[in-house]
């Protein structure tokens, strides 16, 4: 295998990603970030020195793999034969009737392991194996990324350790059991708020010590460069598929509005990547208790400059949400940039609206959503009722995961 020269991360390196094929140069929205991993003023690589060489190596390895047809076809065949891609787009007839807008739903809940997280981890696990790293560490909130990581590790014969906050271990007990069944070690994290933020801290600490043999499989479009870019590219399959599927359903047109929920922002970034060059309005939906774009300020945490909930001194605040996957005080840097440019808009919904949307979708469409994408549904319900989305418009919503993991929690909350 010949190794294309790594251009020190300079723009114009050996990339064959879809954006590049469409001719999107660096600086174009959702194209390649700058050499230092910047999307506008956000992004970068703020990690302890011990990790910088590993990030540089990873950026080079990803560029090389992403440009390698063998790697791409291996990944594509796993996505098809193992993960069940392409996932369908479903017309939600009864919901559309209720809301007065035409609702199309991209069904990542039907992917193997029950969410979009599998797209990212199959890519990263293949890459780790290609780099000769036999161990994965991952953080998880809701447990979906942990389950996906454990799954990919089992498939490829890698060791896997998943860090998970104690609060989440409790509220997502089913996923903890699934990870253990899959052969992963789950390490509960007892520091700080004992949720996703602290799981990321602990995964980073592990990686600082094990970087020579371990790949840190980050679960969203966050962290130091190249992660936000790499994870978006690995998730763009969601948006690229959906774009074609929407055109088939809409006689060649694109939807008017594209909506996705945001924890770190990976299902949204993957979805938006397919539509950023259309006229569709892009809408990200955060949990009201974790609205980094709504209530946050610029900061540098977890390897990236982005928007974070923090106090006057710069101490990071705890997020609060019924959804473990959105319980994160930050957001991926590319979303911070998309918000700053105005290309995408971001909104927050309250827990109570989310529970209503959860029940509504189950009863009208026979789809029990995960609590995370129920946020996207909740925004749509509100926007359709208050005129935020014009009657008769067409809306694509990404159903990032299925609700099995949340049913017990919701049952308790509703009783």
């Amino acid at each position, binding site marked *: 295998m010949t190794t294309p020269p790594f251009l020190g991360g300079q723009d114009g390196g050996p990339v064959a990603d879809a954006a590049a094929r469409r001719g999107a140069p660096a600086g174009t929205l959702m194209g390649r970030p700058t050499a230092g991993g910047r999307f506008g003023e956000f992004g*970068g*690589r*703020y990690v*302890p*020195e011990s990790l910088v060489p590993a990030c540089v190596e990873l950026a080079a390895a990803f560029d090389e793999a992403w440009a390698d047809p063998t790697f791409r076809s291996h990944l594509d065949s796993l996505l098809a034969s193992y993960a069940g891609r392409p996932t369908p787009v479903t017309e939600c007839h009864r919901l559309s009737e209720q809301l007065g807008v035409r609702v199309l739903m991209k069904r990542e809940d039907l992917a193997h392991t029950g969410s979009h997280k599998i797209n990212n981890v199959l890519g990263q696990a293949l890459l780790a194996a290609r780099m000769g790293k036999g161990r994965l560490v991952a953080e998880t909130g809701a447990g979906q990324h942990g389950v996906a990581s454990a799954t990919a590790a089992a498939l490829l014969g890698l060791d896997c350790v998943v860090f998970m906050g104690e609060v989440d271990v409790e509220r997502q007990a089913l996923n903890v059991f699934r990870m253990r069944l899959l052969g992963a070690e789950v390490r509960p994290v007892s520091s700080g708020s004992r949720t996703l933020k602290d799981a990321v801290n602990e995964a980073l*600490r592990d990686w600082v010590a094990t970087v020579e043999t371990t790949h840190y499989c980050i679960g969203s479009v966050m962290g130091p460069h190249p992660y936000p870019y790499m994870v978006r590219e690995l998730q763009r399959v969601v948006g690229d598929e959906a774009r074609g599927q929407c055109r088939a359903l809409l006689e060649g047109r694109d939807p008017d509005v594209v909506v996705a929920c945001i924890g770190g922002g990976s299902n949204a970034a993957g979805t938006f990547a397919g539509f950023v060059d259309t006229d569709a309005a892009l809408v990200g939906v955060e949990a009201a208790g974790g609205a980094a774009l709504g209530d946050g300020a610029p900061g540098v945490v977890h390897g990236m400059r982005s928007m974070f909930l923090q106090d006057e*001194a*710069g101490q990071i605040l705890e997020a609060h949400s019924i959804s473990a996957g959105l319980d994160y005080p930050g957001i991926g840097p590319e979303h911070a940039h998309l918000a700053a440019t105005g290309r995408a808009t971001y909104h927050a919904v309250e827990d109570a609206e989310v529970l209503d949307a959860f029940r509504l979708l189950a009863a009208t469409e026979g789809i029990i959503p995960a609590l995370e994408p129920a946020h996207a549904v909740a925004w749509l319900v509100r926007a359709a009722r208050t005129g935020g989305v014009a009657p008769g418009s067409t809306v694509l919503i990404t159903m990032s995961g299925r609700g099995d993991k949340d049913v017990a929690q919701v049952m308790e909350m509703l009783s």
Partner: protein
Amino acid sequence: MRTPATPASAGPVQRATSGPVAGSAPAGVPPPPGKLESRLREARASGRKLVVPYLTGGLGDDWLDTLRALAAAGADAIEVGIPFSDPVMDGPTIQEASARALREGATPHSILDALRRADVDVPIAVMTYYNLVARAGHRRSASELAAAGVAGAILPDLPVDEAGPWVEAADAAGVETVLLAAPTTPDERLRTICARSRGFLYAVGVLGVTGERRELAASAREIARRCKAATDLPVLVGVGVSNAEQVREVCEVADGVVVGSALVRRLLDGAGPDGAGEFLAELRAGVDR
């Protein structure tokens, strides 16, 4: 504000010969050595090994007394941690100390206000995370540090590639930014780090976060050797240096050490200022004989 500029003595103060400066940091002439670098160079020139303790700022009501006890017991400089909510470079001991200090109300301002009253002649370097200096703005943070008499700043999550804007502000305010070199740092990058580091070069002795280790890692001597070959700046090894024997061992190669978790654990266990002073004396004894 103390004037941070020129070294008091015209001792054997040499600037590290630095290669061409690449990347984002300003390419200008580095400022003359400040108090931190001058003092450490003077001490080294006198044949002394450098012992620098780390203390979490705001840990207990008596932490300023602990600081003074450390100075009196022969610390060559003192690192004062400004606790951050998400200390990714720290292991359980310093995490616990940071969390406790934060619970007790420590803020960057409360710690700097205290340092202003500290009245110790030993140079102080704060060790904190980048978000705390970025939040207030580089220039404001740098001038607040200088006004509190702080000589240096160590920001372990700000690698050289991203350090430019901060270093520019810190240089202008006379605050020396100490950079870190790790066992995984390649040689060429090590040269860039050496050229940009001020005060001293912080050689991370082990791949991992702060915390005590039973044995000195082989990587500690190795990184010290590589750093010594790359720069004339004082080279201090930190992370995983835990007792007098390890201090002695690593100082066979390095100019000195930073000892954090071993001291902080004693403080968490209630050693108090006296215990801290005694521990420092014990570390010194290993290299002063």
